[in-house]
């Protein structure tokens, strides 16, 4: 195969690691790493700039999707979306934060596996609905959240959305990851049915649910048990 492998671009990875160890601003770190990589690959400054410009324009869709969703969420938030979510869950007698998140995890994973990966999301659901609901359920059972607990609970809401999305969407045959794997293997001389590729994701997806739901249930249990133990001392 290609005998002349250029090892210099690895400097770009070194720049990423160094930047994060030094706790630099991620935007600056990533941009510097890009420039280092481009220079190590022998690109002229003008060409690096052009590559940056082209790449940025090509990926505008990422930002466009997020920005347009903010229009809806922002307006609904102004008129009490989060407060409503908070109060609504408090009206449900036996709802717990852990239980709510486990149900959400399952729903997110199943809907993503059916190709409905836009049915959720950090800006659209987690911030305005899921997090206030989790906080509402928690405070109803255990009283006011302390600042650190609130932050951990919110982070867990975001984490649950990610885990559900990631380990659901690959089970959908037409999802881009499955298409990518299929195309790559076919070009490498292993033509396989995409359905077969999606099916072999099922064991990991099941373990993802068991592990994350287990953690959520354990935290809920410990919170209950912990509250009682604290009352004792």
């Amino acid at each position: 195969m290609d005998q002349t492998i250029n090892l210099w671009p690895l400097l770009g990875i070194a720049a990423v690691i160094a930047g994060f160890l030094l706790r630099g601003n991620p935007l600056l770190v990533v941009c510097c790493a890009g420039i280092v990589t481009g220079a190590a690959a022998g690109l002229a400054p003008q060409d690096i700039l052009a590559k940056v410009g082209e790449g940025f324009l090509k990926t505008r869709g990422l930002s466009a999707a997020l920005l347009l969703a903010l229009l809806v969420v922002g307006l609904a938030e102004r008129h009490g979306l989060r407060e409503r979510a908070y109060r609504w869950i408090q009206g449900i007698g036996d709802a717990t934060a852990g239980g709510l998140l486990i149900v959400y995890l399952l729903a997110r994973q199943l809907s993503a596996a059916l190709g409905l990966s836009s049915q959720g999301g950090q800006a659209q659901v987690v911030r305005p609905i899921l997090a206030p609901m989790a906080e509402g359920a928690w405070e109803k059972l255990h009283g006011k959240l302390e600042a650190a607990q609130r932050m951990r609970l919110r982070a867990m809401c975001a984490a649950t959305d990610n885990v559900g999305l990631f380990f659901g969407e690959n089970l959908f045959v037409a999802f881009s990851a499955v298409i990518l794997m299929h195309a790559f293997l076919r070009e490498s001389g292993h033509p396989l049915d995409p359905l077969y590729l999606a099916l072999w994701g099922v064991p990991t997806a099941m373990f993802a649910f068991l592990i994350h739901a287990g953690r959520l249930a354990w935290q809920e249990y410990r919170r209950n048990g912990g509250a009682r133990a604290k009352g004792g001392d």
Partner: protein
Amino acid sequence: MLRLPLLYSLVGGILLLVAGMTLKDAGNPRRLGSAAFWGLFGLLFLIGDLIPPALAGAMVLAMVLLAGLGRLAPGRHERLSAERLEQSLARLGNRIFLPSLLLPVATVLLSVAVQRLSIADAPLLDAKNITLMAMGIACLASTALACRLTGETPLQAVRETRRLLDSVGWAFLLPQVLALLGLLFADAGVGKAIAHLAAQYLPLDTRWLAVLTYVLGMALFTVLMGNAFAAFPVMTAGIGLPFLVGTHHGDPAVMAAIGMFSGYCGTLMTPMAANFNLVPAALLELPDRNAVIKAQLPTALALLAVNAVLLNWLMFR
């Protein structure tokens, strides 16, 4: 036919409005820097395709410098008074959820239905970007519904967008800059160099070592690149196909499926996957920007171990 540039012009227009509002906001301690940041962003959406790529690149670098050198700050935002908020809550009830529900439902329906719709043989929506276009239209419909329900103007929706953008700040730009780094890494052959080193210096003739290298390599490479899609071709061409399938005769379908999921474990662990890990931390107003990663770390590590065992077992049934 509705095309992507139209959607981009709309986004650009919104961003320029945000920039204008920021410029007029005396409550923002860094209003010039912040306005310049959102203004450049808007211009890139509006006229990015018309200017030379090097100029667009220079604009991107200017944005990165503004953000990286701390020239961005959140502005002041008028919230509804407690009294009016209670009125809205009482009047709207659970109908306040409707716009948020309409958004995903309309996106899915549109992307399914529109594939079959066409006017005078021209497809109604840009075929290559159906999901994005469908989402754009669904967002506009949901915004219209939200305006109707709340009795607000579209301009108020832009003001609220500025409030949310201010709370996300520079992290909003990060996913795109990371995608950019991925492109540069791919062009420069970073992945090839890594796979080359691994194949040269690790004893991959031992089966479980090859399995471990593939699984951990996928995760580690994804941590560095922020994207499992970038890691997959590299690790699979460099380690997976020659060693797992070639030397050890494993099933390539199992390798690919579990390999990609191992990459996803890496996605859960890295600030480089900004839109999943850093943007939510900003959206949820968490002071620790790595809080979401910390919440995910135990799940990711346990799942990575499970993947190594599953791969070693299922691939060589």
